[in-house]
């Protein structure tokens, strides 16, 4: 089969899957829906691999292929085709999206098994994957905007999947409102670009852009800033980020799929895809880079103080995407996409492991109530450790290479990018701290009631089902989580998918070992060959220093976390005994502990609390979410109060309106 056939198949399988599941939701029984959904995505992934083989067999200069299935509308000045653009960048995204999605579907087969909305869940999930693949494969701006809107809709459906939960529907609406703000950005940005170049086709736009606009031409800067609004909203960057923590109301596989591995990285993809435009609009690129840097710091500080297990991971996701946005905005494309890939592995893994813990906790997500799961859930614990090490950037786990690759790229460019470089390392330290804070609090320490019960051989089930968010009583029917919980230890499909991801999170870095493999850079070259910043000569001294700093900061962070959350007074005697030597060693240096806490953790935590309290609640929720809503409410009230029901008032409006028209035209004359 040809490259384009494979690529169309990539799209066709998830679409078919979602249609079958959508139509058959009354007929399909048992695990059939899970099997259909999972195999649809698996086939899509395999088609992606076929496309990859076919693409690599082409000469490098012809590795950007546009294929049009049918001419959508080619009349009246409209020239819209249902066309896809297959090149290394889109194919990388396809493989990451479809690959991780397959594993997450597999995980969901067990995770969601007792839920009444089983079929609906897979229908939504397949629909989401289709939308996401369409977004990354889109060959023109209109299809891109369509895919962009569809993933937002799918995300809304999945966040509100337990639709009888008030908190879930509210979170869905919030996500939707902010995403619509982003959609405005994308659509208006696309209109600006279409008007400027007179083309909708991406490759044509890129070819014409340098002729139409000079560097920092106001029009393209505005266009790119509008695109950035879309990218920031979808990728949960400050100040459009508050929907992401709330989106954790959705089922955990959804968090793993949409809010870690795929949809939230759409902003990164967008900037990378539009790089010929962002390189002309350097101001917009700088805004993007600074926005990413701010997000990575703010989110990391908040991650230090949040007590909800999934929200910690959510803030961590924001922070990591901040790295990627910063990278691709600053022209470090290869590293940014490399991090996108490794992040998809280890973050999906962390979410899956978190899902396993939540299963053991019977839906409870509060870190304060957890503890001591290490012994009773070894698989989950192992996955958490692997994911955590990769996230903290400890060699040789994948996150280490990708994060350092980004920072190296920034450092190589010099100039004010040094500020971003430093921010990146500060963020790396905090990342390690919050990650292991989470792990230590959930898995170490005194076993909690649920861990005890698991140790006794039975999975804890609460007597009555309650919403972990606000404590309202629930049943287990449609629209609420199902009756049973599932943990990786007891569900092969969950542990298999976690295992695969754990392996990838561990060894994923080999694809791009600096100076050794560089596979990803070579692979992506055809897409970015027009970029002067792509493949800059690497300063090997800087690289060596950076790697050392990165590793040291990561280890230091883990150490700090360990000092504070494991070794603090009141930890169980068992832990003390196990770490007897270091405990004695450090208990004598009591003040060291305090000093670290005072110097590093307290300021960070204070900043985190500050951001959470002011920036999030007041600025973001106030201005960005509540703003449009209250404006809409007020305008609606104004319009409707004018609608008095009095027919004489209506007649007056007609007459006054007509008189105004006459007046206007007479003044024209």
């Amino acid at each position, binding site marked *: 089969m040809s490259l384009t056939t494979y690529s169309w198949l990539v799209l066709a399988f998830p679409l078919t899957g979602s249609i079958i599941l959508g139509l058959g939701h009354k007929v399909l029984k048992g695990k059939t829906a899970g099997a259909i959904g999972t195999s649809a995505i698996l086939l899509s992934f395999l088609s992606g691999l076929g496309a990859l083989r076919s693409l690599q067999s082409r000469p490098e200069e012809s590795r950007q292929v546009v294929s049009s299935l049918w001419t959508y509308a080619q009349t009246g000045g409209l020239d819209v085709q249902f066309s896809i653009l297959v090149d290394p960048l889109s194919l990388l995204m396809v493989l990451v999206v479809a690959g991780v999605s397959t594993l997450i579907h597999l995980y969901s087969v067990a995770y969601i098994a007792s839920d009444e909305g089983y079929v609906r869940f897979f229908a939504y999930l397949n629909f989401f994957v289709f939308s996401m693949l369409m977004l990354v494969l889109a060959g023109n701006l209109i299809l891109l905007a369509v895919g962009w809107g569809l993933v937002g809709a799918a995300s809304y459906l999945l966040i509100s999947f337990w639709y009888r939960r008030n908190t879930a529907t509210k979170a869905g609406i919030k996500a939707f409102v902010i995403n619509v703000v982003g959609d405005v950005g994308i659509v208006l940005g696309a209109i600006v670009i279409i008007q400027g170049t007179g083309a909708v086709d991406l490759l044509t736009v890129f070819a014409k852009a340098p002729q139409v606009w000079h560097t920092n031409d106001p029009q393209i800067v505005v266009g790119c800033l509008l695109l950035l609004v879309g990218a920031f909203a979808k990728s949960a960057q400050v100040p459009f980020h508050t929907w992401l923590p709330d989106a954790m109301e959705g089922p955990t596989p959804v968090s793993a799929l949409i809010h870690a591995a795929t949809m939230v990285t759409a902003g990164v993809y967008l900037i990378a895809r539009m790089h010929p435009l962002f390189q002309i609009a350097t101001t917009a690129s700088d805004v993007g880079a600074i926005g990413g840097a701010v997000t990575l710091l703010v989110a990391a500080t908040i991650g230090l103080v949040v007590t909800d297990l999934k929200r910690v991971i959510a803030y961590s996701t924001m922070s990591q995407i901040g790295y990627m946005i910063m990278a691709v905005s600053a022209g470090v494309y290869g590293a940014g996409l490399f991090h996108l890939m490794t992040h998809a592995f280890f973050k999906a893994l962390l979410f899956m492991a978190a899902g396993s813990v939540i299963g053991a906790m019977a839906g409870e997500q509060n870190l304060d109530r957890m503890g001591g799961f290490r012994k009773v859930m070894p698989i989950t614990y192992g996955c958490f450790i692997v994911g955590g090490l990769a996230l903290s950037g400890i060699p040789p786990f994948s996150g280490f290479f990708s994060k350092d690759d980004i920072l190296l790229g920034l450092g190589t460019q010099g100039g004010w990018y040094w500020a971003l470089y430093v921010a990146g390392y500060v963020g790396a330290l905090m990342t390690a701290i919050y990650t292991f804070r989470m792990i230590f609090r959930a898995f170490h320490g005194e076993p909690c009631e649920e861990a005890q019960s698991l140790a006794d051989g039975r999975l804890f089930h609460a007597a009555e089902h309650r919403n972990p968010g606000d404590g309202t009583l629930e049943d287990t029917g449609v629209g609420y989580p199902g009756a049973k919980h599932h943990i990786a230890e007891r569900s092969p499909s969950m542990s298999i998918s976690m295992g695969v991801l754990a392996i990838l999170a561990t060894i994923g870095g080999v694809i791009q070992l600096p100076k050794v493999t560089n596979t990803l850079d070579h692979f992506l070259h055809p897409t970015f060959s027009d970029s002067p910043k792509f493949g800059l000569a690497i300063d090997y001294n800087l690289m060596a220093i950076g790697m050392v700093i990165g590793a040291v900061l990561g280890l230091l962070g883990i150490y700090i976390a360990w000092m504070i959350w494991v070794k603090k007074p009141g930890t169980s005697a068992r832990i003390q005994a196990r770490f007897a030597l270091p405990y004695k060693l450090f208990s004598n240096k009591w003040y060291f502990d305090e000093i670290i806490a005072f110097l590093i953790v307290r300021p960070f935590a204070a900043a985190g609390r500050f951001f959470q309290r002011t920036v999030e609640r007041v600025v973001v929720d106030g201005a960005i979410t509540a703003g449009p809503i209250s404006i809409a409410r007020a305008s609606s009230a104004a319009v409707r109060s004018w609608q008095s029901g009095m*027919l*004489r008032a209506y007649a007056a409006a007609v007459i006054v309106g007509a008189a105004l028209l006459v007046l206007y035209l007479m003044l024209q004359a």
Partner: protein
Amino acid sequence: MNIGWYLAVSTIIFAIGAAGVLTKRNALVILLCLELMLNAANLALVAFSRMWGNGDGQIFAIIVMVVAACEVTVGLGLIVAIHRRGLVVDADELSELRG
């Protein structure tokens, strides 16, 4: 012949009609005022017809009269129907539908 005078009268009649629609509450009177507005237009049509020396405007005016009669008939019918239901024929009372 100065068309201006005819136009002025016609405009004034139109304005009186419009003002009547806006100020009167009795639906019957409102119908009368609507007739006034239509007849203002008729006057203008006939005057213009004279000015241009062709018959178009006059034909137009005659047709308008016919149409106006139909409109009033329907209006009166509705008012009778409302009256029969025991409702007050008052423009301001008919404001159940709003918002």
